[in-house]
């Protein structure tokens, strides 16, 4: 089998060997239920709490502010719908942005249908949320402001500290969807003024099916599920110990390697962009002017369809995405690019390259070699249409 190069880390990541190694005993030997009082339960409970400490440490929180959930989407749902169930009377407005993940947008839409006021903030041409629009819209009826830390499609990182300040000035709570950023960029919840935060294991080399919700002490949400008293009642359901152990190990690795990894991936990403800019005429780099997650690059190739590009690269052993993975199957252009003012046809011509643990210089070289002729071939088939 020919070598394959994976450039879709924003979609999901491999579980690192050390992470798999840490979790496997919890599948086969240390399989107790943490709620059990006997020795099997106690050792599981110990592992659970150790992991909680590690996750808390990554984001500068206290362990009792960290709750494990089933995934990032669930954390987002809890932060929005769960928070609104507990919101004060008179606080009926939720402000979020047009470039959020569908877990936020769909939940906000549902809340809008229930009668809450929903405001969707615009972004500029480099995917930065319009904070003036936030200032204009936030008031004492605002319950919650939710703005993602790093965008999954463009990698652009928002000015979270300022957004949180604006929210707090009006007495609103600030949530950030850090699913894409956690483990890739430093996040200090206290320093940034974050009240609630969502994280996802499978974006940082832990397995799929594990998420985190950070709730600052004093912030109340109503749980979405009913059942046992797990996670102090916040999230009933027997804890996914193997994956919780995994995410603990994964964040430990992420923290210790963060600076080096950021430098390495920025270097590779920038090299890729410069090379493609030189060799493929008319390429547009979406979000390049803004601060971005280190390994993400979103490019548009006018005159070629993104899916056609994606399959051609796939045949050449390179895995990338067009827009976000979870919107594949829909024929709409990326809502993120459209919000940035990219023409729908150009948005349709876009690819996202996202790097992570395991990305090599060799992989980048392979893209640099194979992408230009692919674009040329597809442009000649399109003949200027």
């Amino acid at each position, binding site marked *: 089998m020919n070598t394959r190069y994976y450039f879709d880390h924003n979609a999901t990541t491999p579980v690192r060997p050390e992470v798999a190694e840490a979790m496997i005993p919890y599948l086969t030997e240390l399989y107790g239920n943490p709620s059990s009082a006997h020795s099997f339960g106690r050792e599981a409970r110990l592992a659970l709490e150790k992991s909680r400490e590690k996750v808390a440490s990554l984001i500068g929180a206290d362990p009792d502010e960290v709750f494990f959930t089933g995934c990032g989407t669930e954390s987002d749902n809890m932060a929005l719908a769960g928070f609104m169930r507990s919101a004060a009377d008179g606080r009926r407005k939720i402000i979020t942005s047009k470039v959020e993940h569908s877990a936020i947008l769909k939940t906000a839409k549902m809340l809008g249908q229930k009668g809450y006021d929903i405001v969707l903030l615009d972004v500029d041409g480099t995917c930065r949320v319009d904070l003036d629009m936030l200032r204009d819209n936030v008031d004492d009826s605002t319950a919650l402001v939710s703005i993602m830390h790093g965008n999954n499609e463009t990698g652009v990182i928002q000015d979270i500290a300022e957004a949180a300040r604006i929210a707090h000035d009006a007495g609103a709570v600030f949530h950030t969807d850090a699913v894409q950023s956690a483990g890739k960029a430093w996040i200090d919840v206290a320093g940034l003024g974050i009240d609630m935060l969502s994280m996802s294991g499978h974006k940082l080399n832990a397995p799929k099916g594990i998420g985190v919700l950070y709730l600052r002490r004093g912030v109340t949400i109503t749980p979405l599920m009913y059942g046992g008293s797990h996670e102090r009642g916040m999230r009933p359901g027997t804890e996914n110990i193997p994956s919780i152990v995994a995410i603990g190990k994964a964040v430990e690795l992420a923290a210790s390697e963060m600076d080096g990894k950021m430098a390495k991936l920025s270097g590779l990403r920038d090299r890729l962009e410069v090379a493609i800019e030189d060799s493929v005429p008319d390429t547009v780099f979406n979000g390049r002017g803004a601060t971005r997650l280190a390994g993400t690059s979103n490019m548009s190739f006018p005159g070629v*369809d993104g899916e056609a590009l994606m*399959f051609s690269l796939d045949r050449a052993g390179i895995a990338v995405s067009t827009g976000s993975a979870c919107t594949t199957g829909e*024929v709409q252009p990326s809502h993120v690019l459209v919000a940035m003012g990219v023409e729908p*046809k150009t948005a*349709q011509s876009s690819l996202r390259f996202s790097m992570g643990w395991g990305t090599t210089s060799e992989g980048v070289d392979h893209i640099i070699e194979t992408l230009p002729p692919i674009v040329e071939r597809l442009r000649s088939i*399109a003949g*200027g249409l």
Partner: protein
Amino acid sequence: MYTPKVMEHFEHPRNVGTLEHPDGIGKQGNPVCGDVMELAIKVKDGMIEDVKFKTFGCCAAIATSSMVTELVMGKSLEEAEAISKQTVADALDGLPPAKMHCSNLAADALHDAIEDYRKKHAE
């Protein structure tokens, strides 16, 4: 997602390009997904002598365009008019439901080209 036939036509599309003096041109675009196809035909004695296409679109769009040219090359106008989106999809061993609109586009571009020819050569 795609059959081997679709991928084959995607990677090795037949009859890409334009005709110098086309007898009929058909152009179709899908506002939903942004795919655009242009088909040019050369007609002699009621037979499609040559056909070329240009397509901006996904794998299915390119494959269906290529397939439709293969299906009509050397056929009579009547035979070509009988080609439907289902004919094109079947010839490719099927398309995912979400991509059926691409075969629609190919069939429509063909019919558009024939209609254009008929208009220009009204007897």
